[in-house]
């Protein structure tokens, strides 16, 4: 069988109770169930932890950016305070000493662009480095100036802007500004101190952060102005949109934003000194790739497991059920009557055992059937013989002969007795065709026989019949005592010179019925006993026609081989034959057997 056929064959006839279908189905259901369950659990577990990891990771990155920024801004704030202290401690704002101090401070940090002090109406009081001012700078309208003026004594951080005050290249700066007191030639004045930090450091700090391929970090100030955004131009050009309103509602935290149509994870941290918010934007589809990968992997895994399980279970169940099917076919053959069928099934151990036992059983059945046939044959034969015996012409002839002789001699009484006994004998012999009669009838039968024989043999022997009363109602096969008595007369008594004796006894002992025929005749050798029980001992024609062997066989057939005859014989002493029978009461045994 080609593999293809083997795999296809099982599908051809789907019988729902077939082992193959059951195995395949349960295998499949179980495996799918388990795999789906495990997959779902794993998927949830993994995707949850992947998600948590992603969030954690983003949070850490944003924290890092925030920390860096805070550190940087705090440093700048410290510098501002140093500058302020220097100015406050200086007697004269235009002193050379102050200028040198401020120059030193400016030179310590490369990203300090300029330090400048203005009066409240925007006139330059002092600046380091000393570069002349550009015209039309409109500085009083700039955010850092206005804020410092409005919030005296509070350090202000501006959003990044272009520094257009001094004749140096335009640069992006963040201005720190504060309204302070200073001394001009000993007189206290109020002014706006401004320190510009180059924005480059912050820009690069933010630019370096990568949150996946598409993710980015941006910074807004407390009012929602963009401090840093990698796509600032696109937002201004209207090509991109950043949902700043919702960001402004949070100072800290993570949420999912879908305002751009894509699922984005927004993480927010506030930079303390400036009130800026660092906002991390990650794309859910990117951070959740693990989940997607996992999902597709699980689906593939499931599919493949399914296919494999299907194939394996079909294969395995086919393997298991095939010998069973062979077995089934063989049993069917037996069912159809072919007991010669020998099953040659190999396969699973159980199946092998089953087929072995089955073979044994078949053999046993065959034997039993042979035996039954044999027994039936024997029964039939025995019954035929009994049938013959019932109307044995030889016996009838002999008896009638002796009756004739008696009549001639005028022995009227004996003629009557003989004829009466003969009539009774035949009546019981026939007994309406019954096989089984009461022991009483059987004894009556043998009594009649003995009466006839005693007359015929001219009182050559005595006889005695003695039976327990309770034994009389037991049932027995008919014509079992007569052949024994006949045997006793012909082989024991007939040849004797002395008067013979035949005793017939019946009793119950240990729930069994015993019948005994005993004589004081010549006795038999053991070989003779054996011959009597075999075919050879059958004296056809001479006796009643039913041999001792027939009795033995019939008892065996009706009651089982446990029952039957036992011979005790001694030469010149006599023979005793004992019949052992089960007790079957007449009441129990209504019908014929």
């Amino acid at each position, binding site marked *: 069988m080609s*593999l293809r056929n083997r795999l296809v064959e099982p599908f051809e006839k789907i019988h729902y109770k077939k082992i193959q279908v059951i195995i395949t189905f349960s295998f499949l259901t179980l495996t799918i169930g388990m795999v789906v369950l495990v997959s779902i659990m794993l998927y949830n577990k993994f995707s949850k932890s992947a998600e948590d990891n992603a969030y954690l990771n983003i949070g850490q990155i944003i924290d890092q950016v925030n920390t860096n920024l805070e550190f940087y801004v705090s440093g700048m704030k410290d510098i501002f305070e140093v500058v302020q202290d220097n100015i406050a401690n200086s007697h004269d704002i235009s002193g050379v000493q102050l200028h040198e101090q401020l120059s030193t401070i400016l030179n310590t940090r490369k990203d300090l662009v300029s330090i400048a002090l203005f009066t409240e109406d925007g006139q330059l009081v002092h600046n380091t480095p000393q570069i002349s001012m*550009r*015209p*039309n*700078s*409109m500085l009083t309208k*700039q955010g850092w100036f206005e804020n410092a003026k409005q919030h005296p004594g509070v350090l202000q951080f501006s*959003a*990044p*802007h*272009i520094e*257009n005050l001094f004749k140096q*290249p*335009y*640069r*992006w700066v963040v201005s720190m500004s504060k309204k302070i007191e200073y001394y001009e030639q000993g007189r206290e004045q109020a002014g706006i101190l401004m320190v510009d930090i180059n*924005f*480059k450091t912050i*820009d690069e700090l933010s630019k370096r952060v990568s949150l996946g*391929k*598409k993710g980015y970090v941006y910074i807004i100030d407390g009012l929602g*102005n*963009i401090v840093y955004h*990698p*796509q*600032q*131009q*696109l937002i*201004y*050009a209207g*090509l991109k949109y950043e949902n700043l309103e919702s960001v402004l509602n949070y100072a800290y935290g993570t949420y999912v934003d879908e305002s751009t149509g894509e699922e984005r994870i927004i993480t927010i941290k506030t930079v303390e000194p400036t009130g800026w918010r660092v906002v991390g934007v990650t794309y859910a589809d990117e951070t959740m790739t693990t989940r997607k*990968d996992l999902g*597709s*992997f699980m689906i*593939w*895994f499931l599919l*493949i497991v399914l*296919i*494999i399980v299907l*194939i*394996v279970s079909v*294969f395995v169940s086919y*393997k298991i059920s095939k010998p069973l099917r062979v077995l089934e076919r063989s049993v069917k053959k037996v069912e159809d009557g072919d007991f010669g069928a020998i099953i040659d099934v*190999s*396969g699973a151990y159980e199946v092998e055992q089953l087929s072995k036992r089955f073979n044994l059983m078949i053999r046993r059945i065959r034997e039993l059937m042979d035996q039954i046939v044999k027994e039936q044959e024997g029964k039939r034969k025995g019954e035929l013989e009994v049938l013959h015996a019932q109307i044995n012409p030889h016996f009838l002839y002999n008896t009638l002969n002796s009756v004739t002789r008696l009549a001639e001699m005028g022995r009227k009484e004996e003629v009557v007795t003989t004829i009466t006994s003969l009539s009774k004998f035949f009546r019981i012999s026939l007994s309406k065709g019954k096989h089984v009669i009461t022991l009483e009838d059987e004894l009556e039968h043998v009594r009649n026989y003995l009466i006839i024989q005693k007359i015929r043999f001219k009182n050559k022997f005595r006889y005695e019949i003695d039976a327990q009363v309770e034994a009389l109602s037991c049932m027995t096969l008919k014509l079992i005592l007569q052949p024994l008595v006949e045997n006793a007369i012909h082989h024991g008594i007939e040849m004797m010179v002395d008067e013979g004796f035949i005793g017939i006894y019946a009793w119950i002992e240990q729930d069994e019925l015993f019948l005994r025929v005993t004589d004081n005749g010549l006795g038999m050798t053991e070989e003779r006993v054996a011959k009597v029980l075999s075919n050879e001992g059958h004296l056809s024609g001479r006796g009643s026609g039913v041999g001792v062997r027939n009795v033995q066989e019939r008892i065996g057939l009706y009651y089982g081989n446990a029952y039957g005859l036992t011979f005790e014989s001694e030469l010149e002493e006599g023979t005793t034959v004992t019949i052992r029978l089960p007790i079957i009461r007449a009441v129990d045994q209504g019908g014929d057997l």
Partner: protein
Amino acid sequence: MNRSKLVGRFVVLALLFLSAASCSLHADLGQKSSAVTHVDMIVKMDHGDYWKTVKMGAEVAAKEYNVQLNFKAPTNENDYAAQIQMMKQSIADHTEAIILSASDYMALAQVTDQASYAGIPVISMDAEVASTKVKTYIGANNYEAGQKAAQRLIQLTGPDSEIGIINFVQGARNADQRAEGFMDYVARFSGIHLVGNVYCGSDELKAKRLTQQMILEYPHLEGIVALNAEASIGVGKAIDATGQGGHIQLITFDNPPEMLEKLQEKIVQAMVVQNPYSNGYLAVKSAVEAAEGKDIAERLDTGTKLIDLDNMLWPENQKLLFPFVK
């Protein structure tokens, strides 16, 4: 029987291997689907803030759309031959999309058609090219930009004055369109006398020279428009040299830092600023879409802004005018 069992086991094993193989195969396919798109960007010149800004925008889009961007440009803006060569190279390289900012409207038409025949979509950025095969044009509406410049200049000089144009590359589509827009607007005013439209070839020195010539030739010149960054710088230098800053009304194009300085010093009255960052960004975005075979809009106008002293420090304009953090 034993043999068939063995065969069965082999079948199962083979299936297991197959499934494992199919898994890894699937993973490979998965990676391929999100692979990079190769896009070549050919612009007019390899220096100048304008092109640097274009590149910056393009790079942002490249990151966003997973693009391998190949930025190519000749040293000289006049050098359309070099651009043709670059186009041919890109075609030979089987790049997936080309973004072209053509230095010459006509000269690059043929090679653009060739690229299209080779199945490479061509995106026209900044300046158009005379080919119907171009997928889309991304950039400013140059005609409108020219009109904007003219409108402001006439507001400044009044309807009766002499004005001149310092143009850049003859044959470049954007140069011609700006000039056309400018002249169409000016033509509405009978009192305006257009003294000339000269080409500096995107050379600052030549622009300076041409300006000086123009000023000499027309002493009553009241307004000049310079149609690109290099022309503007040259004109600015020429005005500086005359020491007559503010006397001649000056409208420039684009936003080189030196011109912004002059805007603050009121030597330049206004500048027409394009959005190079958006151009670069949108060009790459469209190139990816074109490479994927999607339908894209025929034109994308990224707009122009007229910047003067009043609005130059508006936050949204600062980033436009100063795209680089230095």
